[in-house]
């Protein structure tokens, strides 16, 4: 039962990263590809009706984590207190920059919110990458499974670490490159002409950055977290997850002239990387970097059986319903965005 919930939470978070990933990425690339106000509007229009729904996956993932693994929620959220609060501030700034930009037509108002939107999106990609790096590396959990991490210490990766060390920074940079390429491919998919071409070039440049970064984080992850090789060694079928990531990465390059295929490949790459990390850490959900025997696992962090069982009864139909709304919304707004559309 705990394992089922582990998979459900992992899938929800992976879906979140794929969906909100493209609108975070769109935020990053709009500063690079859109040169006129009309082009900026086109980028915003491509995510306008959906970004809010995409962000709901974060809330759904958080809520699911909360009731399925309350000890993990409590320990990780209070331990990562400062960066998580900053993530909240960035989400606030990003949300209002999207919603408020087009309300006032001024040469001061709009460029200001464009920069806020781009900056907050970029920093969020970096923070999320660093968070993933911290989970893979492990945190100094004590006997009560609690910890508190400062933002940085000496940038080493052993002992008294901070949220940022050279490994988590590396993962953060990789996350930034991933979401930049992912967002650029979304913008290319939803726009036409010059803007589409520029977005495709950004996606290509991002891909060349992504390639060495992927190799580097894979090698470093196996080097600093011995659980990964142990997991893949014990259950070799798990290599299917890294293979998905490789297929996605290759596909992004090989199919780069197609319209929707490269975006789907980049989604596959993200899902492959995240599921590889989840598979490699299982049954740990938050390892300790002090003592491998400590650490939160799906067993000692989970809620009681009864709650998990009734949760399943509403979670699965609820998520099917939510997926239905998503398919409907995306179909309603399918195709390239035109500027003459209604809406703000």
């Amino acid at each position: 039962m705990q394992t089922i919930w582990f998979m459900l939470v992992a899938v929800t978070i992976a879906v979140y990263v794929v969906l909100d990933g493209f609108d975070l990425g769109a935020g990053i690339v709009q500063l690079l590809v859109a040169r006129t106000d009309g082009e900026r509007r086109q980028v915003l229009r491509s995510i306008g009706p959906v970004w809010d729904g995409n962000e709901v996956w974060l809330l759904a993932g958080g809520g699911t984590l909360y009731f399925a693994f309350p000890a993990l929620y409590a320990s990780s959220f209070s331990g990562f207190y400062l960066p998580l609060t900053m993530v909240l501030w960035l989400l606030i700034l990003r949300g209002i920059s999207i919603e408020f930009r087009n309300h006032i037509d001024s040469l001061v108002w709009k460029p200001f919110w464009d920069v806020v939107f781009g900056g907050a999106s970029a920093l969020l990609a970096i923070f999320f990458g660093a968070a993933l790096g911290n989970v893979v590396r492990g945190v100094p959990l004590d006997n009560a499974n609690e910890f508190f991490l400062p933002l940085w210490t000496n940038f080493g990766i052993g002992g008294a670490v901070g949220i940022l060390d050279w490994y988590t920074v590396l993962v953060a940079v990789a996350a930034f490159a991933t979401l930049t390429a992912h967002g650029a491919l979304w913008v290319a998919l939803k726009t036409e002409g010059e803007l589409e071409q520029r977005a495709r070039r950004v996606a290509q440049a991002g891909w060349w950055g992504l390639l060495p970064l992927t190799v580097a984080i894979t090698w470093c992850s196996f080097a600093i977290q011995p659980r990964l090789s142990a997991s893949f060694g014990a259950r070799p079928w798990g290599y299917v997850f890294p293979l998905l990531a490789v297929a996605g990465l290759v596909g992004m390059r090989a199919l780069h002239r197609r319209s929707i295929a490269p975006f789907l490949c980049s989604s596959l790459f993200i899902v492959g990387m995240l599921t590889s990390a989840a598979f490699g850490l299982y049954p740990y959900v938050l390892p300790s970097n002090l003592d491998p025997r400590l650490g939160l696992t799906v067993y000692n962090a989970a809620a009681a059986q009864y709650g998990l069982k009734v949760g399943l009864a509403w979670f699965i139909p609820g998520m099917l319903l939510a997926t239905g709304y998503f398919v409907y919304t995306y179909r309603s707004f399918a195709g390239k965005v035109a500027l003459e559309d209604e809406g703000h």
Partner: protein
Amino acid sequence: MDALTIHRLHFAFTVTFHYLFPQLTMGLALLLVALKTMALRTGDEHYNRAARFWARIFAINFAMGVVTGIPMEFQFGTNWARFSKYAGGVIGQTLAMEGVFSFFLESSFLGLFLFGENKLGPKGHWLAGFLVFLGSWLSGFFIVATDAWMQHPVGYALGPHGEILLSSFWALLLNPWLPWQYLHNMIGAVVTGSFGMAAVGAFYLLVKRAERYGQTFVRVGVIAGVAATVLMLFPTGDQQGKNIAFHQPPTLAAMEGLFKTEAGAPLALIGQPDVEKHRLDNPLVVPRALSFLTYQRWKAQVRGLDAFPPDRWPDNIPLLYFSYHIMVGLGTIFIAVMALAAVWLWRGRLFAQRKLLWLLMLCAPFPYIANTAGWITAETGRQPWLIYGLMRTPEGVSPHVSAGNALFTLIGFMGMYVVLAILFLLLVYREIEQGPEAV
């Protein structure tokens, strides 16, 4: 200040600011459905335009609610880790259900409602609006269900390490505390929405602009408002008071400023509680009314604070007493204002009554104060418990987050929310200034 005080202020500040927005969202969602229904029934484009105007304000308000709402869910983990660890198996259920059942619904169909009117057609657009309304009211349900469990925990068992385990899902959703608190809260949101709509309408009539819209807004606002203000007092407020009387008797005594147990207890209308001397200063009371309202008998005994050990008294009795009295006092005034406006509306002369229109316009901020005071009553009334009778507030806080770190983020939120408040007022003012004819 110690860490506990800062963590409490942190939650109080962020949740108070947050709830300024959802109350208008939920109230306005109902009124938007009303406008869309009138458009569908009469086929008059006027009502569609009116709905489009309010949808623009709704969207700004909704965005504020979303961005200030995300920190609420996160704070359970960041600032109240022990509470989350021990009770997360129970309250995580309702919070996760909110995400799954209402946020997806709300956000998907709000996108369609705002961007897809042409694609959806009149009936489809009505349905999108209705689903946004349903999503926002479901969201309220799951949040109030969570709070109701903290006020009156049911359906749980204690685990081997002191953790609180869910033992009955249906007991959690059918908590006897929940229906009246939910209705009282939602109708409070309708009061905010209807006063807001009536105030904007009154403004247009007073400045003699967009007058047909002004009349529609005043009419819809007053009709919804007169019903909502009455329902606020009876039965929902009355029943919620009885919940407190039976399940949290020290809270009732503190709300009413009743320090001594009395048969035929008076109802204090005005007065200042003096907690040190255990008395109410400068009281103005209705004799025996508290006994009657609580037990329907004029001579019934009502337990005062002296009937309970001081460690079970709410820890801020003056704040609890004043917020409760502000809520009830404003609620009574709202009934009078809306009843007066409704009489003139019924006689067909409201739109020319400038004094009454002024009154309606100036009332707009007060439902926010009343709703906020109501929540302060509920939450300070729950003290000294985080989960009533089960976990005291100091036991729930994050043990490793220091006072300095908590103060840093509290100051950050304060700064950020000042900016948000200014932006919100600026943008809503611009929408009202541009008027319904511009959309």
